[in-house]
């Protein structure tokens, strides 16, 4: 992302309307930065539904198996202890701990996956296009191809302007 154009909106409804117009003209929107999640933007930008739910499911399944399996192993193989003549493999009493490990593994695997795929890690130094993005500005970023002429850039800028965007800037 060497060359790009940024522009901002101050209202999420105008943003959505504007994005649709820009998209209809055939320009590809690279990203939109917003102070809060704008509903309906996923469709406009063509974002896929997050697959993090699957990570959570797999994490949870692993947690359940590890939690239950570990207890079963301890009480039947590693160190069987006779508690008042009760069975060694006391499945019902393994459920609470297995449930907790399920939740723990599911939650942590999903959150770590989220942070890693989004490259959100402590010490990250992201490009801050506009400090007002986390306040009240909705910033649209459109990539400009390396070999594009001044006309191409002007076309994008014009499209943004017609779509009601403000503060259009070209950055190389």
């Amino acid at each position, binding site marked *: 992302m060497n060359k790009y154009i940024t522009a901002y909106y101050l209202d999420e409804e105008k943003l959505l309307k504007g994005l649709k117009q820009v998209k209809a003209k055939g320009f590809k929107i690279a*990203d939109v930065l917003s102070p809060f999640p704008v509903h309906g933007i996923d469709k406009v930008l063509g974002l896929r539904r997050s697959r993090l739910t699957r990570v959570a499911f797999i994490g*949870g399944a692993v947690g359940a198996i590890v939690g239950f399996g570990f207890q079963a192993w301890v009480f039947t193989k590693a160190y069987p202890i006779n508690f008042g003549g009760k069975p060694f493999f006391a499945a019902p009493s393994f459920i609470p701990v297995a449930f907790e490990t399920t939740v723990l593994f599911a939650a942590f695997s999903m959150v770590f996956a989220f942070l890693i795929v989004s490259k959100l890690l402590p010490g990250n130094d*992201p490009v801050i296009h506009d400090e007002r993005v986390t306040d009240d500005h909705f910033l649209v970023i459109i990539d400009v191809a390396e070999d594009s002429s001044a006309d191409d850039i002007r076309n994008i800028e014009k499209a943004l302007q017609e779509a009601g965007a403000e503060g259009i800037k070209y950055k190389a």
Partner: protein
Amino acid sequence: MYVSPIREPLIRGNKDYSQVTKDILAPMAGTPSKYWYMGIALALSAALFGAWATYVTLFTGIGSWGLNKTIGWGWDITNFVWWVGIGHAGTFISAILLLFRQKWRTSINRSAEAMTLIAVMCAGFFPLIHMGRLFLGFFIFPYPNTRALWVNFNSPLLWDVFAISTYFAVSLIFWYVGLIPDIGTVRDKAKTKIRKAIYGFLSFGWTGSAKHWSRHETVSLILAGLAAPLVLSVHTIVSFDFATSVIPGWHTTIFPPYFVSGAVFSGFAMVLTLLIITRKALNLEEYITVNHIESMNKIIILTGSIVGIAYMTEFFIAWYSGNEYEMFTFVNRAFGPYAWAYWIMMTCNVITPQLFWFKKIRTNVLITFVISIFVNIGMWFERFVIVVSSLHRDYLPSSWSMYTPSVVEVGLYVGTLGLFFTLFLLFIRVFPVIAIAEVKSVLKTSGENKNHSEHE
């Protein structure tokens, strides 16, 4: 989206997004007020008292407490259950109300979750110290050791270890994931270089990208879905500590739902106690409005009534079971030497919350504050009654006994209260007390100027 014209706005004062940021970040800027210093001085002195009590407990043993052979659990477990219960409101607000799409939670979820984390820390301290040797606390975890010995997975006390530590860990990441975007806001609004660097580090490089937001929402929703059954499991397992024993008065199947509703009940009371002060002190009355207080009061009526019915059911079943020991325990609770504790519990938990049926009372901030304190006291006594009055007269009258806490036990309790308020006061200085991004996302549909935007 259709917005009922009758429904009152969640956020008052005709705000735009930038004003929201400014209002919520305001308490973090500048030097703290003199009330903040007074508060933290008081809280720290209480914590210091607790540190002394911990020192005495560690160096002389739990003989320094008022426990005896008959009464092996006293204030320690009472406080443990009380603190865990308080924690439950935070998760209830952030997880269960999120799943039910209750938008009013956005103004209170951040601080309630912080309260949860701190309360669980205070709670976890008691089981650790009641073992007498805090430095051997790691024995409760199953770790490979030279004796090749594992922990007893059949014991509810061990389930507790897993429940509480999982609860703390999951609440922590849930809270932090929600905080990341707001820390980004703090970073971008920071005036000094150091502040910018610290919050920049903590924000994990948040930019507000649409893809990140989309993932963030998915993660929040799934975490809520995980935290909702988790919070129910935690107090269920805490109640198993009692319910799976064979002590009359503890051995009842009603305990899990009764404990969970009691937990949410006491937790909401503590949220109210804290937020009524916070909204006033930090000038956030337009965000945490009387409507929010009223909504919380409605949850207090609901859970308080469940608790009331549970008390009566317990008593009924003690009689209906025909078990003379069970009946004796309950008659002893209500009319024995600890009757005073029982009736404090009944008054505070069953009668006072019923006052909230009157709209005048549940929309009155001062009365709500007083009642929330009553509920806190009542729920503490509930645990005291369950723990001590069930134990103090067992099957053998020669071993009947009474229990009075020593100054060391009082110190431990006061110490955790001090720790709680110290950490909460630090929290309101360090992080935004209200979820900024979430409030902004409901501002259009639920703010005071919602009607203007609809007719545009």
